[in-house]
């Protein structure tokens, strides 16, 4: 479950996010779309308790982020285009470190189970440096799922992934949804979002311009929203 109440992120009088409010039920798959600089990263960082909003508040996995940030962090799993993995450590060493930080119980079993699922069990002792991008991202997914989070935050998870890896990632998310995990994904890929997510949010220059069930959105609607307002300071200035 994710609730955002009037979230603002501003500095001086420049806004990155302006009065963003929404509510997402447990076990939903939500896609957050927006052009570069629309505030997607700011929003997902606030939800991950990495960044503090200038106004408003957020509730993630049943806890207010400003009140109990540690409890929130305990219940979210984050996958971004960065792998968050130590390249000089092996897969198992990486996972052991994070398992200790998240105080995962029965970490060995959990690691074995997840590594088998993503097909990395045989490579578990190799340094992450020797993995392909797809394998690293699969391991990143294992890292995020290790502590059985109830909310998955994915920030551009498909960046640089091969077809096999992105299919696996999709499959993983569908499985997670069946276990009532909320999936919150920021992406550029409008088609993918339309095809898989249950709800679509669109940020345009820091404001939430669309919050609809994905099924009810007309094909061109999102693209139109994204098109007529490119990144700040580029298109409008040129056409003036």
């Amino acid at each position, binding site marked *: 479950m994710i609730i955002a109440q009037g979230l603002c992120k501003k500095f*001086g*009088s420049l806004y990155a996010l302006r009065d963003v409010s929404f509510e997402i039920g447990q076990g939903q798959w939500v896609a957050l779309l927006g052009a570069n600089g629309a505030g997607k990263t700011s929003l997902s960082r606030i939800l991950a308790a990495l960044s503090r909003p200038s106004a408003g508040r957020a509730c993630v996995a049943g806890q207010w982020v400003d009140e109990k940030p540690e409890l929130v962090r305990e219940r979210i799993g984050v996958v971004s285009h960065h792998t968050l993995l130590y390249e000089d450590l092996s897969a198992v060493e990486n996972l052991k470190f994070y398992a200790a930080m998240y105080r995962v119980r029965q970490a060995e079993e959990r690691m074995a189970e997840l590594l088998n699922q993503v097909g990395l069990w045989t490579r578990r002792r190799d340094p992450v440096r020797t993995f392909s991008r797809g394998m690293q991202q699969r391991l990143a997914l294992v890292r995020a799922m290790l502590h059985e989070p109830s909310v998955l935050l994915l920030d551009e998870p498909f960046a640089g992934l091969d077809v096999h890896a992105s299919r696996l990632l999709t499959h993983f998310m569908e499985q997670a949804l069946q276990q009532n995990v909320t999936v919150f994904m920021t992406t550029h890929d409008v088609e993918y979002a339309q095809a898989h997510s249950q709800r679509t949010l669109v940020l345009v220059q820091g404001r939430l311009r669309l919050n609809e069930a994905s099924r009810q959105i007309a094909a061109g609607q999102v693209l139109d929203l994204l098109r007529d307002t490119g990144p700040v300071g580029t298109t409008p200035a040129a056409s003036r």
Partner: protein
Amino acid sequence: MNRYRYHLLVALCFLLLETALYLVFMYAPTESTMGQVQRIFYFHVASAWISFLAFFVVCAAGIVFLKTGSSEWDRLAACSAELGVLFISMVLLTGPLWAKPVWNTWWSWDARLTTSLVLWLIYVAYLMVRRYSVDPERGARFAAVFGIIGFLDVPIVYLSIRWWRTLHPSAVIAGGEGSGLAPAMWTTLMAALLAFTMLYITLLVLNYRIISLADRAQSAKQASLRRPLA
């Protein structure tokens, strides 16, 4: 009405500075051993006082900024730091001018001089952190953190350098200013302090206003770019 507030402030500041100037050059007696050059003392001490005041404001505003996150406090700290560096630079410039004829050397590595130099370095670093940060919001927070640490450092730096020098046999050359000042000199010094404090406040208010306006101009520009074309 709003505009005249600034005019009033500037006028008051001008008046006080002129009075201080008159007192320094016409009223205060010439010092018996140091001669005319001693008159720089009034500006020197006043500048030093203002720089400490400015750095205190940087630290205090930094703490409030970190607690509340409102950028007004950060702007105040930024303005005050710039003025602090300006005044501490004046301290470092007027010091040698006075020292050369009196001590027969431009510079001595005594506690006060060295501390001022270290302070200058700390607050120039403060301005650099602010200027060179990749993300302006984080830059403001970095600056606040550094401003707090830098200000806490001032007494420790002073103490350590004083011990260093006084325990060191060869380099104790300290002027005994401030001790046994003639009443007229005392009055002049107080007037100079008052005038410089007023100068600091005026510059702070104007600087703050300029930065606020620049910020508003920036956001207005952004808003106009965002507006869909008719």
